[in-house]
Every structure is written in C-alpha cells, then in structure tokens.
C-alpha cells in the first residue's frame, strides 16, 4: 500500500529538492539549442531532437516526482493536469502553470506559463523562425505522462519568444491504459 501521507504543497516540494543556479540551467539549454541549430541545419530536426530530449528527461522526472510528492492515484485526466501544473512545474522549475481551455470531453487542455525560467535571456534571431525553443518542456510532459500510461500529443499554441503574451501548450490525451496507472505492482 502506498503510504497515506498527504501530498506536499508545491512550495514544500520545491524546497525539498536539491536546487541549482537557474542561470546555469538556462544558459546550458540555450547553448545546446544553438549547437543543435549549427549541427543539424534543419530547424524541424532541431525541434524533433529537443522534443526527444524532453521525452527522455520526462520519463525519469516522473519517478522522482512520484517518489517525493506523496501524490497518489489521480482520478482522471483533469486531476492529473492540475497536479502537473501546481506540483510538477513547481517542484522542478519553481513556477506554477495554469490549466485552462478544457474541451467538452475533458481530454484536451492547455498549460499556460507566464514565467518560464527556460527562456531567461533568450532572444530568437529572425533566422530561427520555425524553432520551437521550448520543445523540451512539451517533451517532458509527454514522456512523464506516458510513464503513467497516458499517451498524449503536446503542441505549442502561444510562445512569448514569438511575441505572444504567454506560453501555452495544448495537451491532448489520446489513449489511456487505466489498469497500469499510476503504480505497477513490484513483486
């Protein structure tokens, strides 16, 4: 049985994890994107690689999240989305996201970020038009959700680097395998 400890608050979670200088993180990510643009030439391929990196990171972060947050089974996708927005973003990036724009079926919603540590000091030159700079984040969400048996498609609909007023990613639940979610029997 999972322990019956109540879930931690986002702030408590963030202060419980080991933290590092955000500048180092942000500049490292920026330098990676820049090098990928040089080496891969096609912007679309860079987008794909950033998404893949995010996916791989997400599959690992979800374990750390479940281990540290005391979050137990979410009843539906809605609760899952709220948990990610309030606790997941907070635990790892120190910011919270807003969940909004639900569709009627409750399977598609948006995460809106007004404060995004990934893009501090970033300005995109005109030559990077098609670049989805934050694709690592959408990849993380996709990877993390897949580990708890939720297949999703995640796309960016607003991006402050392109002049929008916030960051908004659209998350669409495409397939769910409920019996495996969220814990597997370890025996």
């Amino acid at each position, binding site marked *: 049985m999972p322990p019956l400890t109540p879930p931690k608050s986002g702030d408590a979670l*963030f202060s419980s*994890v*080991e*933290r*590092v*200088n*955000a*500048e*180092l*993180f942000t*500049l*490292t*990510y920026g*330098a*990676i994107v*820049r*090098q990928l643009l040089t*080496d891969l030439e096609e912007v679309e391929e860079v987008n794909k*690689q950033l998404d*893949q*990196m995010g996916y*791989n*990171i997400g599959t*690992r*972060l979800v374990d*750390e999240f479940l281990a540290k947050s005391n979050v137990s089974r979410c009843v539906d996708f809605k609760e899952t989305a709220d948990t990610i927005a309030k606790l997941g973003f907070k*635990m*790892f*990036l*120190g910011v919270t996201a807003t969940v909004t724009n639900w569709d009627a079926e409750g399977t598609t919603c948006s995460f809106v970020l007004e404060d995004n*540590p990934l893009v*501090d000091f970033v300005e995109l030159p005109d030559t990077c038009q098609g670049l989805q700079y934050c694709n*690592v984040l959408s990849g993380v969400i996709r990877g993390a959700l897949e580990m708890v048996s939720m297949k999703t498609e995640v796309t960016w609909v607003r991006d402050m680097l392109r002049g929008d007023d916030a960051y908004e990613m659209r998350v669409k639940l495409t397939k769910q395998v409920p019996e495996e979610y969220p814990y597997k029997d370890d025996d």
Partner: protein
Amino acid sequence: MGREVAGSCLDGVVMEMVSAYCGRFYAAKPELAAGRIEAIGFQVGHQLSERYTMDRPRFTDHLEAIKFICKDFWSELFKKQIDNLKTNHRGTFVLQDNCFPWLTHVSLDPSMESTDATESDPALLGDTAAQTTSMLLYFPCGIIRGALTNLGIPCAVSADMSNLPACSFVVRIKT
C-alpha cells in the same frame, strides 16, 4: 542567491545533450561528439564569466583570474569552491574538486543508454558508463575554458577523473 531550478532539470539536459551527441549524432566519431560538448560548455562558461565579472576590476594576472574561477565562479555554479589549487608557476594549473557534483549526482540510466544506442556500433557500447562520464567531463572543461577565454586568457583544459568522485581540471595557459 538568485533564481533556482531543481538540480534534476540541469542534470537532465546535460545528460540528454551528452547522450544525443554520443549516441544519436556522432556515435562512431567520439572525437567529434567531444568537440561539440566542449563547445557547448565553452559558450556557457563564456557567458557566465561575463555576467559574474561585470562589476569587477580587471584581473591583473593569471593567478588572480584562476583564483576567481576556483572561488567565486565555482561557488556560483556548484555552491562550493574548488578544494585544491596547484600550479607549476609556468602556466599550468590543476584545480581539484574533491567531490565534483556532476560525477556524484548524474547517474547513468542503462535503459536510456540502450534506447539511444540502438543504431550505434555495438563495439562502442562496451564500457558505456565510463565512456559517458568522460564525455560528460568535456562539458565542465569547456565551461572553464570559456570563462578564462572571456577573461582574456586563452588556454586548454582537460579533466582527470582517475580518483572518482574527485575530479581535477588541468588548465594549460597558452602563451
């Protein structure tokens, strides 16, 4: 202290960068992968050093700049100083960190290695953990070289990890 994020975010992007360059892009050309990882570090070090020295007077000699790297710069990045600094007084400096955070925290996930390595040469998978660690170290080497270059000191930086989790960075100043 300025803004912070979880350490696992930084570990995640660094590990994925190393794994992408060594596994997906340049699996058969480790020297090319190493060069790219070092170049990414160089850019990070160059920018950080610019930021952290904005309000300082210029360093008057190499030793002063190296001490800045060992104390202030390292503390900003890792919340600790370099533990030991040695020099031969002829342009070579050895900076030893007795417990380099990236070597103790970054764990190598075998499943990640295997998924990324599916298309690479099986012969390269032999000693993956040690190889990935040595590839990873091109990143901090690049950071140190970028930071010193920004301070007007061209140099070469290599890492010695024969004493894990201690790690020594050898800085050779070009004259």
